[in-house]
């Protein structure tokens, strides 16, 4: 099919890739360099720092008005809790759709798909007003609370994740469950002891995808969180850098690298599983 590559063929292909790599790494190189640059400014930044230092990283810990690691902790917490709950709730629902036959089942499956057409951010105004009202009665779930934000993320993720899982559950043979029934196991026990362990690959992929999505989510967090120490990384870092690129570039760059670390690591470790999942859903902000 393909002709043999000539020397020129090799050369131009490598040249194209190197150009693309230059584009891909352009921001990365500058940010890594800035994070070690003592001048802490975008102005006249050199690609190799004149005075290499770790001061920017130290500033991340020390700056009390911009509690970077509090934000990071908030992001990790919100993402972990909402993704775990999401996996659990979706697995329950997917199990019901996959194994039970009941009235309204088909309608329910369609409803899941239809709801997914409506992106949750479109309703940000009413979500804001809803949490405002809830907060009057249950302050712990109102505006500016992590529980409230987790609740919102959880609601938005149910539809698509249930579908992904239902598809996988359908492929798990029922014979295993049937023999468990015969041995006298209850419905719920077969679900937790047999189906869930077998479905681990999809549970992991759904967890990771929703973790990445939540960790990077900006708009709802921005609308719902208000006080400085409650912010997630996305909102906090936007606040921190503002228009201060001439004065905070170095510290911001150090923060940007630390903030990206968990997600980049997850991608590196799970590349193969994620790529398969991404081509189906494409969930990343």
């Amino acid at each position, binding site marked *: 099919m393909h002709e043999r590559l000539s020397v020129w063929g090799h050369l131009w292909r490598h040249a194209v890739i190197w150009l693309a790599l230059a584009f891909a790494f352009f921001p990365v190189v500058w940010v890594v360099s800035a994070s070690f640059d003592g001048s802490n400014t975008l102005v006249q930044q050199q690609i190799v720092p004149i005075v290499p230092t770790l001061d920017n990283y130290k500033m991340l810990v020390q700056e009390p008005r911009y509690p970077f690691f509090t934000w990071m902790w908030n992001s990790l917490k919100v993402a972990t809790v909402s993704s775990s709950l999401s996996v659990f709730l979706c697995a329950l629902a997917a199990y019901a759709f996959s194994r039970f036959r009941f009235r309204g089942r088909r309608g*329910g499956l369609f409803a899941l798909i239809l709801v997914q057409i409506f992106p949750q951010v479109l309703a940000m105004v*009413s979500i804001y007003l809803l949490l405002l009202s809830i907060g009057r009665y249950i302050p712990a779930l109102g505006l500016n609370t992590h529980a409230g934000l987790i*609740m919102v993320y959880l609601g938005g993720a149910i539809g698509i994740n249930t579908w992904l899982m239902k598809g996988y559950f359908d492929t798990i043979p029922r014979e295993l469950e049937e023999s468990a029934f015969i041995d006298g196991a209850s419905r719920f026990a077969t679900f937790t002891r047999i189906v869930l362990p077998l479905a681990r690959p999809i549970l992991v992929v759904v967890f990771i995808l929703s973790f990445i999505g939540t960790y990077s989510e900006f708009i709802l967090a921005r609308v719902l969180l208000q006080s400085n120490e409650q912010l997630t990384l996305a909102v906090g870092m936007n606040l921190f850098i503002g228009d201060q690129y001439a004065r905070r570039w170095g510290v911001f760059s150090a923060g*940007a690298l630390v903030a990206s670390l968990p997600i980049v690591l997850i991608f590196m470790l799970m590349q193969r599983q994620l790529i398969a999942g991404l081509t189906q859903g494409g969930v990343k902000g």
Partner: protein
Amino acid sequence: MPQTIVRPPGRRRVARGLPGGWGFYTRLAALSAFDAVVLPFVITLFRDQEYALAGAVGIALLLINFVVLVERAYPLRYLLPGLLFMGALVVYPAIYNIYVSFTNYGTGNILSMQQVIQQLEAQTYAPPGAPRFPYAVFETEQGERTLLLTAPDGRLLVTVGHRVVPLAHVSGPEAVGLPEDPGFRLDVTVDENGNVVRIGDARRLERREVLQRLSALQHLELDMDGTRLRLADANNFQALSPRYTYNRAENVLVDNATGVVYVPKDGFFTSPDGERLLPGFRTTVGLANYVRLLTNPAIAGPFLQVFVWTFVWAGMSVVLTFSLGLGLALVLNHPQFKLKGLYRSLLIIPYTIPGFVSALVWRGLFNTEFGQVNRVVQALFGTVIPWLQDPFWAKVALLIVNLWLGYPYMMIVCLGALQSISPELYEAAYCDGARPWQRFWHITLPLLMTSVAPLLVSSFAYNFNNFTVIYLVTRGRPPIAGAVTPAGATDILISYTYRLAFESGRGADYGLAAAVSLLIFFIVGTITWLNFRFTRAFEEVEHSA
């Protein structure tokens, strides 16, 4: 596909040997306890006129009871937790959003009519013939202040906190007749003319000193057995009356000072002359928000620009990311090309960095004065580009950022799709003497499209609402000249919605924002639905259901 369904063991045959009734009674007890907490909450919501919320919580409660009590609803026990969250935080807001788009909800019209009436009825005024109370001010060294008022009938009154109480006698230590504390005393000192000169440690201030304290005195509101007193002029306090009275039967508000009758209209109590009382209340306004959006030139003009740019943005983003992604995939896909795996891993790096981080970094790199992008431009072309100031270049900058963010996804997808194209097709084409670009146009692209097209459509829908990139790179700026709503040259519909609701200098306009988001919903909904139709996703659902 035929399915063999073994009857589930059924709830009645409990596995662990528990007596059958037990589980049921435990459940019943837990449910009662739950209902006992939630039911009063629903009633409270109703009483506070939060009807939508009360209805939603009520329905959820009913569902929970149904599912726990009715054996037949067993499958729903697995479904309900997820469905409740989805209902509460996706479906309910979506419906409420429709309602809000038909209201004037926003700054100036935040409160319900009930609350506004309460606020207006609490306002007071001093009717012209109201009794006047000349006063004197007494102050201790520490600045604690007591006022001595003279009633129109000549009785003397003193202030205790904000309360005004009669002074029984004007000489020596006297009981002041506080109802709840009869023993409360004020040591009043009188000079030879019968004028009070000291109350306790507080000395009577000179007129000059009183005048210096007028601004503080103006803010005082004293309470004399329910009648409120306020400073009327430099020398007198005056009794106040409620300014407005609400007439429930006729649903009008009467101004007691002028006799003007205010009628609720478009969210404000309005006089026959069209004068409006503040604050306004929230009320339905029919299609007013949609009409404004489409006909008010100061809103419709910028809205149209935002609307068009949203489509350009989403379309160009897909075309650019797909072109680059496909190009790189084609280059990498040659079997004799070396280092393919390494290059692929490196090229997807932009995709692994959280979007908000990349967007904020690029915002810095595109800085016109100091940014690294302009340094490269300067070196190549000897000039700089006003990336974030000029509407055109701001759009170019955004597309470059989104190209950077999005091409790896397209590359991954295309690499996968290219693998699945059968090599025989190429061999046949090669034998027939097709040139490389002919093979691309007639084999690669059409076959690729069958599997990639749906992803391109979802990518379009995703970028249609890609708030993070727009907002974090340009914040929607530069502003559109002459717009009365916060509309910027690079705003897309979703960021425009956000700014209408939460960042407008003229106050929030939730109603208009909700109307815009409903429009977006129809556009995105239509696109997604068509996508489903063409890719037969519905049939797939039908099939797998």
